[in-house]
């Protein structure tokens, strides 16, 4: 059951390239969240924009006693709603409805976890990584962006023992090219007997490429889909993605309740 938390901005750390990390105090919501879930956010003091905006939960924040205290969002400024978040001052209130959606499936050793992120697609992995680390799963993050400015927060992952592989299209950090280049190399290199689960979040062409690669190499994958969402609860049918049905056909699935995490081989890519 989601809650609608009146979350207070604790801090808002600007990063290069229009990104920022916002920390919210919202213990009741934080206590419920699982890796890959999201919240629907709305500024409490403004009537505009009308609709809430979906955001992946980035870190979970605990108070000194280790109790859930809040969460962070990794926000990229692209329009009105994300602009309000980008500009939010500590003390500002936002209504956060959540946690929502189907989380990632957590694998267990000996299965390895490969997380593939593009841009703000990094967000859900900040909670997935520690959850997997807690289970002793060996994890790798493949993290791609246009330039080095799209790559950040690596320390959060390295802290949990995550192996990090970066790629930038302009070669300014890590390998030059799309993140699928090092991913494909790794898929080619890993022996079949080592079980690997591929998780992906990022722009849709990237998700498709990752899912296709995983399928090609016989690896299961889970992708976190982004759609325009009206309600986040299955009420409006705005957030659909085409998925395959068992009878060989297809149907529109609501990513807010059947997703945002879907099996990569289940999505009918356009």
């Amino acid at each position: 059951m989601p809650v609608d938390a009146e979350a207070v901005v604790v801090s808002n750390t600007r990063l290069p390239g229009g990104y920022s990390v916002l920390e919210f105090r919202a213990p009741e919501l934080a206590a419920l969240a699982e890796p890959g879930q999201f919240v629907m956010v709305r500024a409490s003091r403004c009537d505009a924009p009308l609709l809430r905006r979906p955001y992946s939960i980035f870190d979970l924040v605990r108070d000194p006693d280790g109790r859930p205290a809040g969460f962070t969002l990794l926000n990229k400024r692209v329009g009105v709603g994300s602009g309000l978040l980008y500009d939010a001052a500590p003390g500002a209130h936002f209504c956060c409805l959540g946690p929502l959606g189907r989380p990632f499936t957590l694998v267990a050793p000996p299965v390895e976890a490969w997380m593939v992120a593009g841009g703000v697609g990094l967000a859900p992995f900040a909670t997935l990584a520690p959850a997997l680390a807690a289970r002793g799963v060996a994890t790798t993050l493949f993290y791609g962006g246009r330039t080095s400015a799209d790559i950040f927060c690596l320390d959060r992952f390295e802290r949990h023992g995550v192996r990090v592989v970066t790629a930038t299209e302009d070669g300014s950090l890590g390998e030059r090219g799309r993140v699928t280049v090092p991913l494909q190399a790794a898929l080619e290199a890993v022996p079949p007997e080592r079980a690997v689960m591929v998780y992906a979040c990022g722009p849709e062409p990237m998700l498709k490429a990752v899912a296709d690669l995983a399928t090609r190499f016989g690896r299961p994958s889970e992708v976190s889909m982004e759609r325009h969402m009206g309600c986040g609860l299955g009420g409006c049918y705005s957030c659909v993605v085409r998925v395959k049905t068992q009878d060989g056909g297809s149907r529109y699935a609501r990513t807010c309740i059947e997703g945002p995490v879907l099996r990569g081989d289940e999505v009918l890519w356009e």
Partner: protein
Amino acid sequence: MGVDLSVQLGPLRLKTPLMSASGCFGYGVEYAGVVDLASLGAVVVKGLFLNERDGHPPPRIVETPSGMLNAIGLQGIGVHRFVREKMPELRQLGATVIVNVCGTTVDEYVEVSKVLSDTEGVAALELNISCPNIKEGGISFGCSLAGTRRVVSAVRRATRLPIIPKLTPNVTDVASFAAAAEEAGADAVSLVNTFLAMAIDVEARRPKLSNGMGGLSGPAIRPIAVRMVYECARLVKIPVIGIGGIVSAADVLEFLIAGATAVQVGTANFVDPFIWGKLEAGLRSYLERHGIPRVADLVGSLQTGSAR
């Protein structure tokens, strides 16, 4: 002071005048976790055709100033799966269920209505003759008086359930449609459905919705909807259900005072799924503050000394 929120909607008694608007509350069951469905006046479920429907490709919604456009295209599981898969849970949750009935032909409206008449727990049928988002049926009936009469009287003959044609605002004189529906045997009318509208991505020079056009809902349309409800309530004797842009108890009151016996809340449920308790509390406190014992006493209480 205990106030009485119940209202009489033709043959139907509702606990409160607050209903979910079709298409904005899934099949109701999606919201079982956030709201006690039995506490609503009625749960109006998503529009249903006889068969399953795919709907339009995404993007299906886009935000506009104080509103949104949708072109869902009536994706749905069809009336048979609804009866089988959703009704048992709705019954068990004690919801007063009103089904939004769609059709591409008069026969389909009749067929769907018959299936639902035989289903335990369906309280009434709302006839969707006003969806702007599909080419066939829907709006083509709702934009002609003859079409409206045809659908309503055919369904009237097919069912004993209360029937509530849902009117489109995309017409010159909406009250004449309410009157036509009344004549053809409707128990109530509901209005408004969405306004046909369009938003363009100027960078791509393409419509923002995959379907090109969509329906405008939300606070933006409320003043027009209130006017239309006022016009209809003055003309017809059957109850009118007010819909359009309600986000607060004050907005509910606006519709009731204009002449609506009950209201539906659509877009606002997306913004705040916990809105229902707030609306009910707001109604109660207004009635208490004004010393009005029953919400029904407010209906049509607008003073129009200087109004036209």
